[in-house]
């Protein structure tokens, strides 16, 4: 991974324009200088440098996977990541969950007037570092500026294209009764890292987001011949919502064991204080893998090479179809459901 050097400084003459102006999105000289000085050098590649209205990609073999995601987060920088890293990892991870090798990304920035140029530059550098580490190219993009108060610093949209190898079929429709359910690592870190910063909760050492690209562990499984039937990253809504979606889409039953689900002590503590259930807290670097039962042990071993807490947490059965059930820490059982809205802190 390319370490990101925060000591570098923004190459724009920031003494002149230390903040983003409406003119930076106007299509005039200021916008061109922003693109030439900040964006193109960071993402530099022949396709982007052709300065065309769109990216013209070389012929690809295999089926194309195509996805898009938008990113809004406050604060823009948090322990373990920032909005730029999220924007690259999020779209790369969606491609990886299709079994695709991520190749090309587009990026759309919506900047709020008054955003410090240095902040924008740091976000762009973070995206550059992530894209380089993963091996994807950012080949086309767009920048708009909105009036002060009409945005939250930066909004980013990324879209991504990847290729799925022939013969590879990954998705809820391929989940089979008997499949092992493997979790790629401990849950709840991203959501609680953000909550801890927003609510000013202090622990011994900050909770760091798990934000990470997942293409490498996914392809390690596929390349090792693990029969992967379905993959899902555990973003908004957390593990619980992801499993409910898959149970409903596949019309299978998913059984999980609460005691097998790894949650770090600091995350569990923060959840207890705020009245949150870690099963519903967002992750940005974790996924659930449904694999053939004979391959489960090997799959866990491979995933532990990336995250030591990876483990099997459950299995798939035929009934009750469409439902996720959990065996609680003390041996009771219950249904896992999606939340109606966001998790809200409780009164007492």
């Amino acid at each position, binding site marked *: 991974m390319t370490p990101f050097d925060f000591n570098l400084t923004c190459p724009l003459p920031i003494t002149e324009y230390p903040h983003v102006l409406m003119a930076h999105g106007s299509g005039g000289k200021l916008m061109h200088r922003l693109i030439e000085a900040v964006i193109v050098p960071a993402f530099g590649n022949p396709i982007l440098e052709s300065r065309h209205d769109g990216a013209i990609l070389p012929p690809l073999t295999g089926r194309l996977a195509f996805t898009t995601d938008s990113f809004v987060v406050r604060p823009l920088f948090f322990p373990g990541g920032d909005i730029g890293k999220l924007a690259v990892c999020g779209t790369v991870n969606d491609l990886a969950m299709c079994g695709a090798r991520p190749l090309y990304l587009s990026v759309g920035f919506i900047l709020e007037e008054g955003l410090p140029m240095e902040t924008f530059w740091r976000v762009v550098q973070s995206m550059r570092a992530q894209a380089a580490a993963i091996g994807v190219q950012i080949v086309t993009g767009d920048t708009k500026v909105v009036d002060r108060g009409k945005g939250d610093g930066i909004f980013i949209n990324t879209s991504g294209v990847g290729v799925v190898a022939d013969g590879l079929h990954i998705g809820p429709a391929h989940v089979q009764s008997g499949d092992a359910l493997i979790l790629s690592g401990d849950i709840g870190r991203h959501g609680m890292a953000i909550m801890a910063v927003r609510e000013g909760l202090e622990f011994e050492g900050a909770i760091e987001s798990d934000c990470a690209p997942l293409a490498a562990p996914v392809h390690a499984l596929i390349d090792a011949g693990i029969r992967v039937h379905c993959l899902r990253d555990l973003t908004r809504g957390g593990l619980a919502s992801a499993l409910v979606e898959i149970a409903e889409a596949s019309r299978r039953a998913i059984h999980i064991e609460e005691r097998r689900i790894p949650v770090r002590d600091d995350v569990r503590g923060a959840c207890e204080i705020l009245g949150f259930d870690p099963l519903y807290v967002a992750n940005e670097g974790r996924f659930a893998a449904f694999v053939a039962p004979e391959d489960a042990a090997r799959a866990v071993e491979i995933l532990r090479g990336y995250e030591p807490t990876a483990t099997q947490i459950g299995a798939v059965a035929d009934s009750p179809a469409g439902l996720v059930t959990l065996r609680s820490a*003390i*041996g009771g059982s219950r249904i896992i*459901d999606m939340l109606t809205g966001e998790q809200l802190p409780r*009164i007492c």
Partner: protein
Amino acid sequence: MKYIQEYRDPEMARQYAQALARITTREWTLMEVCGGQTHAIMKFGVDQLLPSGVNLLHGPGCPVCVTPLELIDKAIDIASRRDVIFTSFGDMLRVPGSAKDLLSVRAEGGDVRIVYSPMDAVKIARENPTKQVVFFAVGFETTAPANAMAVYQAAQTKVENFSLLVSHVLVPPAVEAILNSPGNRVQAFLAAGHVCAVMGYEEYIPLAAKYRVPFVVTGFEPLDILQGVYMAVKQLEEGRAEVENQYSRAVQRAGNSYAQDFIRHVFQVVPRKWRGIGEIPQSGLGLRPEYAAFDAETRFGVAAQSVPEPAECKSGLVLQGALKPTQCPAFGTRCTPEHPLGATMVSSEGACAAYYRYRRLEKAEA
């Protein structure tokens, strides 16, 4: 994790369940008063470990559920005003008033904010002197001390743009109302640990004596609840009706006298209407006349309008333990968390929501 994991130990839970089965010789009906306990029972499946003779009913201890519709409408009225910053604990925001909820007010441009402490609301008032900052003071005795402290500090530091919309309720009068109700089936109570951490448990002693029912002050972790049930059943089997304290790591007999002093300094006992149940005398807290200036109802002149509940909603019976959520004809069909008929389906502590979230399979299988 210390103080959590040891109270969720499966081996200990199994041992308690076995001990409970050994002492249970006949059918007993217990009520856990607090919605937090209902939630824990459903979440961990504590009820599934109980012997078949021990039946748990779920009590009225969900502050969101018992806040009357009129008061939610008043909150929505106040929060919709241009010069107001309306602050509340999170789970009040989704409770429907007669026309909409506070989340909709926020979407329509109202400044509605979630806070973790009423002191945060006072801080917001200090930072926004041109705005009126209102805190929705709901809850039992547990939240009353912090709300009293907020009013006291606002008065001391002359933060005059701060006020409370008060809907405080008290546990003992509600328990007595249940004991007096004609169809009462409750033979013992698990008293709410957090309420007793503030108030102590002396006020339950005359109730235990008068109605001949055991009370066990109980905590919120699965093993706490199992032990509380064990202690209550043991009393019933032995023919005792005493007040016992399972939650001794947090609760003392006299409670927290400093917190009680603050409550008494700022609040006085008043009659209060409970959603789904009706008015219970001497069952709530209101601001004392000295602090009347901080009363949002008078400051904003919001008029009380009696609003009928949907006739189909049986939440009153559920709150009194007369009906299990799954016994309601509307449960899971015409009443779901997305389209709730009553507050017991909305709040995370509400019995109907807990059943829907964790147990709706039972209805399908029944």
